[in-house]
């Protein structure tokens, strides 16, 4: 390259210099112009000028006026023209600028390459290295210190408790912002028409959501959330109904058809699986040992096992239980924060989601000749226990967090093996219990008795069914009664043709499905009590029927599941053997059923 050959051509260089200077000047001018133009365009958006909108306004007032119409059109044309010319100007300006700068750069580079910049050496002494070095160090320290001080200052100045704010705000649930979300939902374009969750329950103010505002929602899930899970015996509210969908209708334990997995449960227990999110909770117990299991719903792995022992006040003697009840009959419950279990000897324990004990106590050995079997249920952050035993029968509400008693209401009833039901009547939440001699209704938050009705007798085993304001109670050697709940409960109809002493009935808005322990299914009109059909499966049934997707799932003691259409006419949709006996009630998630057999827990999916 020519710099190596020395001999720079001065005139060329001068020429180049002039060009570069010229292009530099040109570039600067262009810059100014562009900026000015930009500002102009920015200031007046030609596409919606006040003049334009005013004219359109006028036109709409008297549509007949052709002259205004013309004006509008001309103005519109002008506006567009102006807009596009402005754009054109900017673009061409930009390109010109680019070219001129290109010119500038290339000239300068050319000069650089042609003309050897003669090194200005030799000059005075070389830079003083060590002194500089010390200086550098100093400066580094200074700037470091400066940076530190500056940031620290900033840090102190900035308000620094957003974290707390969010916490507190999160705790005081009221969906104030979203309350009026109903409006403006639907003009969001296609596909977004599903009303928002927060919004939907604000539209139809169910008592739950409305009273939500009074109680901090931080430490419990909303009723909606509960209904998305399967947190207690016979599903949310314990009335044998699940809203889960895509439920399998055929499987076979022997061939393994549709059996996703099966897991052996170490200790026996007649309690039914309960589910929160992806986790299933079970308990098992022998005379001496009591355990709680958490199982991964996807894999069937036992995630943790928690041994229930060292509970102070726990009686040393073994409770007398019948074989059919066992030591772990009551199902567990959970609100997604802790899981709660109770055992035949009155041991009650709360575990966190990792199986660590949060609190535990003993409610005193229940005086119960078959063994305690009433399952637990949860409302908000209150753990509700039906403790109907010979001495001092009562229902009590415990704080889920601490286990302290929130309320206790003693009941003048005989021993009951039924489990509580928790229903939303549309006006209030009602806690419903069944035991000789009455079906009684309590406020789940305070334990206050709302009503009671003498209509049942004997050793009550079946829990209650509920639908559309009607409570159904049944017991063997007693009778089946439909009670309209509310301020003034009354018996709508009674019947004692078919009765049950273990399986609980389920009801839809229109039908009641009753199952006798001998395995006869009966369907009544829920409102009138007229019998639609009956069907004998021939095998005794202990597990309670579940209602899902308009089908009734009934499993007999041998583990054969009968799937029936929940309708006016009897129609069998399926008959699926588990290949293992079972006393337990199935649990459901979307697309899956979980069945506890005598030894194993099964996951059934499509």
């Amino acid at each position, binding site marked *: 390259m020519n710099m190596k050959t020395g001999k720079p051509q001065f005139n060329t260089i001068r020429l180049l210099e002039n060009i570069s200077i010229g292009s530099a000047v040109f570039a600067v001018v262009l810059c100014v112009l562009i900026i000015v133009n930009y500002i102009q365009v920015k200031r007046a958006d030609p596409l919606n000028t006040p003049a334009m909108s005013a004219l359109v306004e006028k036109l709409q007032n008297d549509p007949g006026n052709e002259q205004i119409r013309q004006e509008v059109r001309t103005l519109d044309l002008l506006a567009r023209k102006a807009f596009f010319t402005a754009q054109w100007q900017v673009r061409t300006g930009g390109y010109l600028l680019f070219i001129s700068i290109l010119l500038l750069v290339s000239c300068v580079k050319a000069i650089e390459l042609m003309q050897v910049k003669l090194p200005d050496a030799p000059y005075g002494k070389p830079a003083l290295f060590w002194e500089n070095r010390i200086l550098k160090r100093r400066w580094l320290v200074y700037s470091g210190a400066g940076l530190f001080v500056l940031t620290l200052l900033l840090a102190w100045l900035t308000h620094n408790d957003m974290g707390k704010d969010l916490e507190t705000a999160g705790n005081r649930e009221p969906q104030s912002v979203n309350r009026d979300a*109903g409006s*403006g939902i639907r003009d969001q374009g296609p596909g977004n028409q599903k009303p928002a969750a927060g919004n939907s329950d604000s539209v139809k103010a169910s008592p739950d959501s409305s009273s939500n505002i009074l109680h901090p929602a931080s430490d419990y899930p909303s009723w909606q959330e509960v209904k998305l899970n399967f947190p207690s015996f016979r599903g949310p509210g314990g009335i044998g109904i699940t809203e889960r969908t895509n439920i399998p209708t055929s499987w076979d334990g022997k061939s393994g058809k549709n059996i996703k997995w099966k897991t052996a449960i170490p200790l026996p227990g007649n309690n039914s699986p309960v589910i929160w999110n992806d986790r299933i909770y079970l308990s098992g117990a022998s005379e001496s040992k009591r355990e709680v299991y958490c199982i991964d719903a996807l894999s069937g792995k036992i995630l943790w096992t928690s041994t229930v022992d060292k509970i102070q006040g726990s009686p040393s003697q073994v409770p007398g239980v019948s074989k059919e009840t066992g030591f772990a009959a009551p199902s567990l419950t959970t609100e997604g924060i802790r899981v709660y279990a109770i055992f035949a000897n009155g041991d009650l324990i709360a575990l966190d989601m990792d199986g660590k004990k949060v609190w535990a106590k003993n409610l005193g050995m229940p005086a119960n000749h078959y063994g305690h079997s009433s399952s637990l249920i949860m409302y908000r952050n209150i753990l509700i226990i039906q403790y109907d035993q010979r001495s001092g029968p009562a229902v009590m509400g415990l704080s889920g967090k601490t286990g302290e008693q929130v309320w206790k209401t003693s009941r003048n009833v005989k021993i009951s093996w039924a489990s509580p039901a928790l229903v939303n009547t549309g006006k209030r939440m009602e806690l419903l219990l069944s035991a000789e001699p009455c079906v009684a209704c309590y406020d789940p938050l305070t334990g206050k008795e709302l009503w009671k009705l003498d209509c049942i007798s004997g050793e009550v085993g079946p829990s209650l069914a509920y639908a559309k304001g009607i409570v159904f109670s049944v017991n063997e050697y007693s009778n089946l009664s439909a009670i309209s709940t509310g301020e003034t409960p009354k018996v709508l109809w009674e019947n004692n043709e078919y009765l049950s002493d273990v399986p609980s009935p389920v009801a839809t808005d*229109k039908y009641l499905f009753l199952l006798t322990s001998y395995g006869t299914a009966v369907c009544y009109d829920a409102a009138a009590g007229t019998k639609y059909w009956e069907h004998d499966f021939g095998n005794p049934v202990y597990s309670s029927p579940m209602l899902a997707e308009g089908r009734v799932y009934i499993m007999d003691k041998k583990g054969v599941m009968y799937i029936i259409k929940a309708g006016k006419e009897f129609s069998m949709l399926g008959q699926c053997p588990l290949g293992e006996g079972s006393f337990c009630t199935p649990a459901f998630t979307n697309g899956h059923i979980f069945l506890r057999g005598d030894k194993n827990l099964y996951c059934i999916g499509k």
Partner: protein
Amino acid sequence: MKQKIFIVAGLVLLMIVIVIMLLDLFSAKKADQSNPYDYKMGEIRKTDSTHIAYAELITIKPSLEEIHAVACGAGDRIYVAGKNGLEIFTPEGKSDGNFGFEGIASCIALDKKGNIFIGLQDHVEIFDQLGKPLRKWKSFSSESLLTSIAVSDSYIFLADFGKKTVYRCMPDGRLINRIGEKDPEKNIPGFIIPSPYFDLALGKKGELWVANTGRHSLEQFSNDGTLNSAWGEASMAIDGFCGCCNPSHFAILSNGSFVTSEKGIERVKIYSPKGEFLCIVAPPSAFIEGTRGLDLAVDSKDRIIVLDPEKKQLRVFVKKN
């Protein structure tokens, strides 16, 4: 010296760059809310309140899961039908009986005797006052979707969205003739019904009116199917019918004027028998945005019952005085 200036200049510029970055990154300013291209929905939904000549008297909350159709019967009792059932209310809004049936009622009408004609998707079922099933017609076609029914002394008129036609039937369900299908000879333009809202009603003299929503017009046919008259214009302005296809429902008052309801811009308005805009019954602000299917009924006192499927209410409007 010269060097110094250059260096300082360079540094200053560099610092400017860095400061710009920092400010832009950490400034807590809210995002710019100005939208030069905003489509002012609010503007459209605003209405001149002086036009509003009616006031909401009572609001009835049926307990049905979904409500789709409302009608007025003897003694001005209000019948509302929806999913799997029907409910009856007194003019004051007290519950006055109910009964259930399978399916989703899409329209409802009553005859003189008080028998209840319910259109269920593709067929009609007839019940007596107490809900005893009297007769069940056979399905018109698998594609049928009956969106409106009217009962005259001798005939039943049905609007079928699926077939885009109107049936004239005998009370026993026998089809006599179809009305309103495209026919250049009789210069009948034919029904353009883009959305499943296709209403018809009988005038006080028993003449048949049908809402040709795609054309934003109400058309009057005689029983043989000749088109006698039509009125209505498309416009978002208050005196026209807005959107793609309106009025979604209408009813006829005793003096022959029309009560119409629209979707898109939810509003209930009254037009004179000739089709001039008279007044507003309920402005858009009275409804949740996006509400569709405001079925209408009129009782003998010319009270207007609006079925609000979104709020699940029956809203009774009366003239202000």
